[in-house]
């Protein structure tokens, strides 16, 4: 009886949201960067956080990983308050600028982060294959291109297979083939139960996501699926659909 109940409960997870934000308020340098924002990120989804540069995407992501001083509101991540110590091994965060050591080799970077998060060194080759850098082990990171450095940074966050990945513009400046490959990997991770919150300012990428969060000027305009957005606006192209949503919001 007990075993069956447990099986049922894994089929229907009790917690549906990996991230729940209620009334988040962030003031920076006297400006209200995010006045009041509430949202949910479904567990096991690839959720795209989309909006123009400077709309507050990075601030929101930093709030989720607990790196941002927030003024008010409640953020629950995997059932715990954002930034709590227990989450540090369960949330992977990749900043927009690659945060790896330029003066070390790819292997040395990953080896260091592997030790910090406590995974065996064998994971290094696996994660490098995921980002297509398996032949770069001995290369010094500062000699790599921007896109390659971004992938080293991404690989470092994948090492310990965290259940939540927060990725700030991970595909910027990548060649289209590699970008497509990465989105495939993101979905593969999501099928394995990982939740991915991915920001982008390129609307083309919206079509790759299961769920969308559309942001503008620190406000959340929509929290919906790509198809819902198409249905609501009557636009097939998601870029145009976003434009419609902005027009609706400003009442034109």
């Amino acid at each position, binding site marked *: 009886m007990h075993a069956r109940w447990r099986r049922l409960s894994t089929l229907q997870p009790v917690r549906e949201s990996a991230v729940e934000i209620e009334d988040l308020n962030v003031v*920076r*340098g006297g400006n209200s960067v995010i006045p009041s924002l509430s949202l949910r990120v479904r567990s096991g989804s690839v959720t795209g956080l989309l909006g123009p540069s400077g709309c507050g995407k990075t601030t929101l992501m930093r709030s989720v*990983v*607990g*790196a*941002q*001083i927030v003024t008010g509101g409640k953020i629950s991540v995997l059932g715990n308050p954002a*930034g709590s*110590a227990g989450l*540090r*091994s369960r*949330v992977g*965060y990749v*900043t927009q*600028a*690659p*945060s*790896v*050591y*330029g*003066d*070390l*080799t790819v292997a*040395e970077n990953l080896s*260091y*982060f592997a*030790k*910090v*998060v*406590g995974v065996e060194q064998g994971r290094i080759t696996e994660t490098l294959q995921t980002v297509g850098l398996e032949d770069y082990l001995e290369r*010094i990171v500062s000699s790599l291109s921007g896109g390659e450095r971004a992938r080293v940074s991404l690989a*470092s966050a994948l090492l310990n297979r965290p259940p939540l990945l927060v990725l700030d513009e991970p595909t910027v400046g990548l060649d289209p083939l590699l970008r497509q490959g990465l989105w495939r990997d993101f979905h593969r991770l999501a099928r394995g139960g990982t939740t991915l919150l991915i920001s982008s300012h390129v609307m083309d990428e919206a079509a790759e996501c299961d769920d969308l969060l559309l942001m503008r000027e620190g406000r959340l305009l929509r929290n919906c699926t790509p198809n819902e957005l198409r249905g609501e606006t009557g636009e097939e192209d998601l870029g145009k659909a976003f434009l419609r949503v902005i027009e609706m919001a400003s009442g034109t």
Partner: protein
Amino acid sequence: MSARITLATGRRVLGQIRHDPRTIALLLAVPALLLTLLRYMFDGQPQVFQSIGAPLCGLFPFIVMFLITSITMLRERTSGTLERLMTLPMSKLDLLMGYGLAFGVLAAAQAIVVCAVGFGLLGLESPHGVLLVGALAILNALLGMALGLLLSAFARTEFQAVQFMPAFIFPQMLLCGLFITRDEMAPVLEAVSWLLPFTYAYDALDLAVSPGQLDATLMIDVVVVIGATMASLALGAVTLKRRTP
């Protein structure tokens, strides 16, 4: 705190320096070369060379580690790697101790070279043994490192970090008693010198390279140096923030 992460951090910092052979060469060669310069500057006054050169063997690591640490840490802050580490299961102490390990090792290497040249080749004397000078050199290097970690929080660019050298280290060097005994300074300066950690670092070395019985004064100096190191590390830890604006 975890030994695994501390050791990994120490190895990582050493790895960063290992990839920069020119820095290592400069680290090891420059103090020995400066000491040689002093030796021949004071060619006619060997006792002046002894009174300045011998303590300097233990003070070089302080100065160099201060500079290197403040820049390494500043880079860690500006490159985003510090922010990444602070979102990982790593305690601040792991990071600070890791730095301490790495720069302790570097300081030891530097002290070995400069002491070998100074006491071995240039005829400096160490009545209480070169080992004592070496041990003090490593303690001073750790003090320099701790101050560098702390001050890196107040620099936004590497240019600023480099300026901390003349701003914070030079006055301490001038007032520590190395160039002129402190009781000959204006009373205000003498009083100020008692508040500066470098004064105790110099005083310990001065005792270590002078003939005469070693007494409790040396112990007091050492305790002050260690205390200042701990205090700077504690203050440095406060500047490592997991949450930033």
